[in-house]
């Protein structure tokens, strides 16, 4: 396997997506487009869990794991994102 072949892989695309998502969440935190802090905060959390899901599915290879693990992984990401967003919004009363 040549070096290029090692680099030219799904994992590299995933890394690029993760870096782009990090830049996006940075911008969101600094007020990109969303005036309300609550919207920016929610967006930051959503992007964070998109990143988490990418790491779980593609770096940790749960995408190709036995379906029970895949289901557990997807469920955890969804539940955590929902719980944290609910708590975050709940604080802004």
């Amino acid at each position, binding site marked *: 396997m040549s070096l290029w072949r090692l680099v030219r892989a799904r994992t590299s695309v995933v890394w690029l997506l*993760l870096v782009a998502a990090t830049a996006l969440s940075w911008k969101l935190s600094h007020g990109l487009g969303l005036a309300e802090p609550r919207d920016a905060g929610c967006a930051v959390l959503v992007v964070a869990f998109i990143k988490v899901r990418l790491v779980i599915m593609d770096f940790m290879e749960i995408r190709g794991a036995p379906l029970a693990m895949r289901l557990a992984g997807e469920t955890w990401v969804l539940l955590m994102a929902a719980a944290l967003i609910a*708590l975050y919004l709940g604080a802004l009363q």
Partner: protein
Amino acid sequence: MRPISSALDTTARGVPLPDRPPRHLPGEAGIWLFICGDLLVFSLFFVTFLYYRGQELALFRAARLHLDQGLGALNTLFMLSSSWFVASGVRAVRGGAARMAPYCFALAWACGCGFGVVKFFEYRAKIRAGITLNTNDFYMYYYMFTGIHFMHVLIGMGVLAFLTRYTWRGACDARKIRNIESGASFWHVVDLLWIVLFALLYLIP
């Protein structure tokens, strides 16, 4: 009537479909048990943090402003890149290019060092400014969670150093690959946890 299995093995024109790779969990079952437990503990940390943040919103919001978001972002890049190097190392070992694997794991280890250096300067600046674990609740959580995470980073760096040596001698059999996958999976959790910590501590307004 054709049996179901052969009906699914071919396209409409009867051309055989390539075999799908069997589903595979990378690493030993034991490491996944640990990973799930670790994630559950950190899940509690995350929920606890946001709950108590809700109780002292103004304090948490003000305190966050003393964090260096640039350094937090830099650390995120170190974590993401280290995971990429680790994933590449695993692919190298599986793809018959095992000689490249030690370089991948060494580079991942170097990213870990970068993370450590940034953390050192970050903590030092805070402590010099008089911001410690006892300053307020936000900083109690900040030091506690980033501290526990950093201990994971140190353990992970030990694992990466081990993997660098482990793959040095080339060709890996199935058992060796599974051990490498176990170490890799642990490191990805370290990355994953930081992604959430960065969002919760540094970014959410």
